[in-house]
């Protein structure tokens, strides 16, 4: 049994290497295509075109008091010809609404929202006395999905941008993310941009004015993870039109496509992932040609947890969302009707993301036992571990290279050294810890506990 399991782990590793290498190569092709397209000219044309689609920026906020004003200020300064901002206060118990009302001179207004999606009751709607395109919706607490559904009902744009109240968009992020909608309006239904970690950066008046890596070890590990996930993975899946996630922190969606798909599902914590998977399903079922695109350059900055306690909660939440998205859309798995999404992307998610932690952790135990009873030599075991570390390093280096070519946000040699150090270091405990938390999420899927939200420091305090 031990030997069979070890061969199974070996086969699993070979599959992992094959899929991730393919995705990395395709990511390189996609990044090259993106950088060769003359982005600046396209962007300037977009910003002046009366045909640019209108966008409703939906900011969900739950107890985001300390950072909400800076967030909204940074959104009001975005470069885009036609957009409105809708802040949805999802039953905060702090002074989120009061701060907004005071800072932007908002007053209560009558507003008849289009009943396109179900959501918890709205208590009040506020709008400014001036011509600012800002709306504050105060509703009963129902979670992020519910808040987004309310935002969609109140929105008037052709597209909507979902983002968190604790995130900051770069000035041209909206225009860059909207480009695929302008270039291919008939097919593009969703686009996502790069989410970067703001910890360690200097933020002034809602703008990142100095980019730097975080000092915290926990946040540093996440920087490496984000670079690998966004540049090494999402770009590659885009090339196959099989991108399964547009990050909830920053994504742009065609409103009518999301309404047709039924909006955000409120019974899951991974609403962003589940929506995108469902968009694949509904578009394929309807025979509608579609594209879901990850754009490597536009940046949204977000605060990452710096303590293991909050990181654990976050990762359990993400993993639970991942499992639930698979359960809700299990009919797509290995189904040729859904092309690459059903035949490769979803199975990869099932095998590597959901079952992977179990297989890997069990692999450690079984292989140590095999060494102890002499079924395999210690040297073989060490060589296998070295192989996995080297391959992880290979993926990280590839992703950093793509990041350098397309954005180069961390140009200092010291930054590169630190990222590589953490890429090696994550194999010594961090990754295994994440796996343990991800396995815990199986229990959460059954028990469905609520999750405590990370207390945000606000961006004024992000520069440390």
């Amino acid at each position: 049994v031990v030997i069979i399991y070890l061969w199974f782990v070996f086969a699993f590793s070979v599959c992992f290497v094959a899929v991730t290498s393919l995705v990395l190569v395709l990511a390189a092709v996609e990044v090259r295509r993106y950088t060769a397209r003359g982005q600046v000219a396209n962007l300037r044309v977009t910003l002046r075109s009366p045909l640019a689609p209108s966008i409703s920026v939906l900011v969900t906020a739950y107890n985001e008091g300390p950072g909400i004003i800076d967030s909204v200020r940074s959104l009001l300064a975005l470069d885009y010809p036609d957009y409105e901002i809708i802040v949805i206060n999802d039953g905060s118990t702090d002074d989120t609404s009061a701060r907004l009302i005071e800072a932007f001179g908002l007053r209560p207004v009558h507003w008849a929202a289009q009943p396109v999606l179900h959501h918890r009751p709205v208590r009040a709607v506020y709008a400014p006395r001036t011509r600012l395109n800002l709306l504050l919706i105060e509703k009963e607490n129902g979670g992020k999905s519910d808040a987004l559904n309310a935002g969609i009902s109140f929105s008037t744009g052709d597209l909507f941008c979902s983002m968190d109240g604790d995130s900051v968009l770069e000035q041209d992020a909206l225009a860059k993310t909207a480009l695929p909608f302008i270039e291919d309006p008939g097919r593009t239904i969703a686009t996502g941009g790069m989410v970067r970690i703001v910890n360690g950066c200097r933020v002034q008046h809602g703008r990142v004015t100095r980019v730097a890596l975080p000092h915290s070890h926990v946040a540093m590990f996440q920087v490496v993870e984000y670079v690998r996930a966004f540049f090494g993975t999402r770009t590659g899946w885009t090339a196959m039109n099989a991108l399964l996630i547009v990050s909830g922190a920053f994504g742009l969606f065609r409103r009518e496509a999301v309404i047709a798909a039924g909006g955000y599902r409120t019974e899951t914590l991974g609403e962003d992932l589940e929506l995108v998977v469902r968009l694949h399903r509904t578009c394929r079922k309807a025979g509608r040609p579609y594209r879901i695109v990850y754009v490597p350059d536009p940046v949204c900055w977000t605060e990452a947890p710096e303590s293991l306690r909050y990181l654990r909660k976050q990762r359990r939440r993400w993993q639970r969302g991942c499992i639930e998205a698979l359960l809700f859309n299990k009919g797509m798995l290995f189904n040729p009707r859904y092309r690459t999404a059903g035949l490769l992307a979803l199975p990869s998610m099932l095998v590597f993301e959901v079952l992977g932690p179990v297989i890997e952790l069990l692999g450690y135990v079984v292989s140590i036992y095999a060494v102890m009873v002499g079924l395999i030599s210690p040297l073989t075991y060490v060589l296998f571990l070295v192989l996995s570390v080297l391959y992880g390093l290979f993926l990280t280096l590839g992703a950093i290279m793509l990041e350098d070519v397309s954005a180069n946000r961390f140009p200092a040699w010291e930054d590169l050294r630190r990222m590589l150090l953490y890429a090696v270091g994550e194999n010594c405990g961090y990754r295994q810890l994440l796996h343990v938390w991800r396995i815990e999420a199986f229990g959460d899927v059954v028990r469905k506990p609520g999750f405590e939200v990370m207390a945000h420091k606000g961006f004024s305090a992000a520069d440390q």
Partner: protein
Amino acid sequence: MTAALAGTDAALAALVGLLALSLTAVRVVIRLRGRRRRRLWPPASQAIARYVTTGGDPPRPAHRAERAMLLEVALQTLFDLGGSERDLLVELLEQLGYLDDAAAALTARRRAVRRRAAEMLAVTATPAVLPALLAGLDDPDALVRTSCARTLARVGAPDVLPRVAAAAERDIATAPGAASAVVLALGRRDPAALTPLLGADAPQPVKMVAVAVAGRLRLPDLAPALRACLHDGDQLATIAAQGLGLIGDIEAVGELRDLARDAHRAVRARAAAVTALGSIGDPWSVPLLEPLLRGADWPLRAAAAQALGQLGEPGAAALRRAVASGPAEAREHAEAALQW
């Protein structure tokens, strides 16, 4: 097994080493480029600013890097310039041979080179390279073709415009965004050039873009063509109604009223017609809009309330009546409209 693993480890270590070296090389190149840029950008932008404001001596780049930087600065500057300063800068690019280089690059074998050249010519938009742009309309790549077409729409002779319109029609399926930009450029240049794209036999996708452009650019000359589109499919009728509202075409009122009350048409098209009636400011539409405000469809109710709010005292009176005695849904919309 151990030997095989050791071999794989060694091979992967070599690959990682190679990747690390490549990464270092990429970083060195990026740094050098950044340094060169920081060194060359200020003098290039100062020279261009001096030249376009005072009309003094034209800048003379000494070597290839300076030449490339001057072009980059000039192209970025062109986006924000207009009038004589823009003409002066384009003339400078022509004198220094950049435009000839770009025209020649339009026939290059590599698609990326041709795309860059076509985009550069689109930014400069000068009639100096018309033959190359005309030839570019037959390029095998859709983006090169549409870039050339966009430039020709701005600077080509009037007799070229039908070819430009044909190029937009051809590429609307393969490069819809770029083809839409061509239609937009045509509309800005000469509304009459959009007429063939608005005809009954024009393909639906390009017709929709042309209708949208006519509306967004508020081109009153094309209002009759937009009115004809109100009798077309619901999607086209919606865009046409929006356009007529933006134009403020008073002659469209009758057809817009017909569309608004036609229960067989899509709600979206009817709502667009109602919104247009409000934008045009036709107070005689109040008797039509008042029942729609009390109707069952949310988009129609919302549009009717908004339109009534734009129709002066008769509209406001209808809204007040809805607040006083209408059903709850109508009251909600009417209150919102009265407040705004």
